[in-house]
């Protein structure tokens, strides 16, 4: 059952169309990522979904309710992490959470237990009584996430949940979001511009550009949509990598580590291997280079893949690889 249903949703601000004909379903227990640049319309879409903004066109349903007409009920069922982890600066971490629990009418004893549990799970038990203004940006983000969870909502709307977090904290948050879906059956719609995060965390990804969803599917489906295999990765010896210049077989060659190089573009693999061996280049492993989510993301944003765009001519690649391989 779709918990969040969007049909041709459009929202304008004057002449600006912030959300443009978005159609998307988020099923129960699913984690869906909205991937896009700043200004792509992700935050506006989350506000429309939670009934803060009325769509100019289209239909929005959250748990089968119209969030604008039944906003009170919908907002009881959603937990929201806003883009900036805005906490009440003069309240402690626990007071921030307890205030929101009270607004959501969580019984006091239950709220206290939940607050303690959430602060523990997010690694914040020592910060319980620290005023929010004294917390680092990363800690504020964690408290804000706990605030979104304090009333145990079935739906989570997360706007850039790991922004400002260090890698360990970001990993903790991703784990919490993942367990929210797998163990608690929550439905999660999150916005991010972190490709790796979207790929690791989300069951499905919708790529937004200029208010529109331009691609959506699983990470695998999107990678497939990015195009065919775009080259091969060859593992060789340090010396072998240095000699690849002579054997590059008309392709762009890009060093990715001292022992690994990538041949980009259409490659005749058997012929390539034959030529490498003919040049006494040892070949330990050859694997196809699959298109990445980033390739698709860059394509839908009208940009060439970064590797090709930034590494210049094949000769430049090879020249760059030679001294590195030799050392």
């Amino acid at each position, binding site marked *: 059952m779709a918990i969040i249903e969007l049909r041709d949703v459009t929202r304008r601000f004057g002449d600006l169309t912030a959300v443009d004909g978005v159609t998307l379903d988020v099923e129960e227990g699913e984690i869906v990522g909205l991937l896009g640049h700043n200004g792509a319309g992700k935050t506006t879409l989350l506000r429309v979904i939670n009934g803060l903004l009325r769509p100019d066109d289209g239909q929005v349903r959250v748990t089968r309710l119209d969030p604008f007409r039944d906003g*009170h009920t919908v*907002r009881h069922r959603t937990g929201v992490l806003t883009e900036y982890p805005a906490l009440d600066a003069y309240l402690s971490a626990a007071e921030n959470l307890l*205030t*929101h629990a*009270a607004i*959501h009418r969580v019984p006091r004893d239950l709220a206290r237990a939940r607050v303690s549990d959430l602060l523990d799970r997010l690694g914040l038990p020592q910060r319980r009584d620290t005023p929010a203004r004294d917390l680092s940006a990363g800690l504020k983000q964690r408290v804000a996430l706990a605030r979104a969870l304090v009333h145990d909502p079935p739906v989570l709307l997360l706007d850039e949940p790991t922004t400002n977090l260090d890698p360990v904290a970001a990993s903790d948050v991703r784990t919490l979001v993942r367990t929210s879906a797998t163990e608690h059956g929550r439905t999660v719609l999150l916005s991010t511009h972190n490709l790796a995060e979207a790929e690791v965390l989300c069951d499905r990804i919708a790529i937004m550009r200029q208010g529109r969803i331009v691609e959506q599917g699983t990470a695998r489906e999107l990678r497939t949509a990015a195009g065919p295999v775009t080259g091969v990765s060859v593992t060789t010896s340090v010396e072998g990598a240095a000699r690849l210049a002579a054997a590059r077989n008309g392709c762009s060659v890009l060093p990715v580590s001292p022992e690994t190089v990538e041949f980009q573009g259409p490659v005749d693999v058997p012929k390539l291997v034959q030529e490498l061996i003919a040049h006494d280049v040892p070949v330990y492993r050859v694997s196809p280079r699959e298109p990445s989510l980033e390739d698709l993301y860059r394509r839908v944003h009208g940009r060439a893949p970064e590797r090709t765009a930034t590494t210049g001519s094949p000769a430049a690649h090879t020249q760059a690889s030679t001294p590195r391989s030799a050392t």
Partner: protein
Amino acid sequence: MRRATVAALVRKDLFTVLRNRGVRLPLILTPILVLGVLPIGLVVLGQFLIETAPEALAEASAGPLGQVADADARQQVVRDLPSEATWGVFVLELFLSPLYLLVPLIVATVIGADSFAGERERGTLEALLHTPLSDRELLAAKFLSAWIPAVAVAWLSFLGYAVLANWLLWPAVGALWFPTAGWVLLALWVAPGLSALGMALMVITSARVRTLQAAHQLGSLVVIPIILLLVLQVSGTYVLSIERIAGMGAVVWLAAGAALMVGTRAVRRERLSARL
């Protein structure tokens, strides 16, 4: 409207008021300056001048109260108090009564400006809008979280001022002469109404502007009628009799009610969300 929800939000805002020095300072300093430093200065300075320059005494006795055109009003102030208390009574009862009204008004506007513009500036307004709070609950909470401190400060200031006024004129009067009926009416009837009016105006203003600074700038305009009242009172054109104070209170409460009704239209979730 769910009272527990409103109470939770009021509690949060009151904590913020009590812990935020930028908001707390005007709450403390305004009554100290208006109802402490100013009356002491005026009474002591006036008495000093009168004692050192006897001709000023004659001027003073005919002076400030001589300006009061309405004989009934003049009698209301002078009553049967000794003549050496005239200057002090003029300052403490007449001159400072409009200024007393500044106390709840300033407190209400300082907190009121913070209610939406401040929350928006700090980014906390969006988090509130994402909760199940209804627009009316949000307005009620924001109103109460400014109105309660404004009235509390006004009443505490009134009590403190009563002690000060009696202490200052004790040598001349030798008895408790303050508060007068007019001042009691001001404190219990007009000050809460004015707090409500100031708060309602600030909620409307604060919901429409984007920054706290803009809200404060517009909020400062609400003191203009009080300054006008002060001028009228001191010049003797319009002295606040009990009837006038009661009438003024009624007008203020009506205006506050009207402003609150406008405020309910200004505080709409979608309107606030579109300005985030």
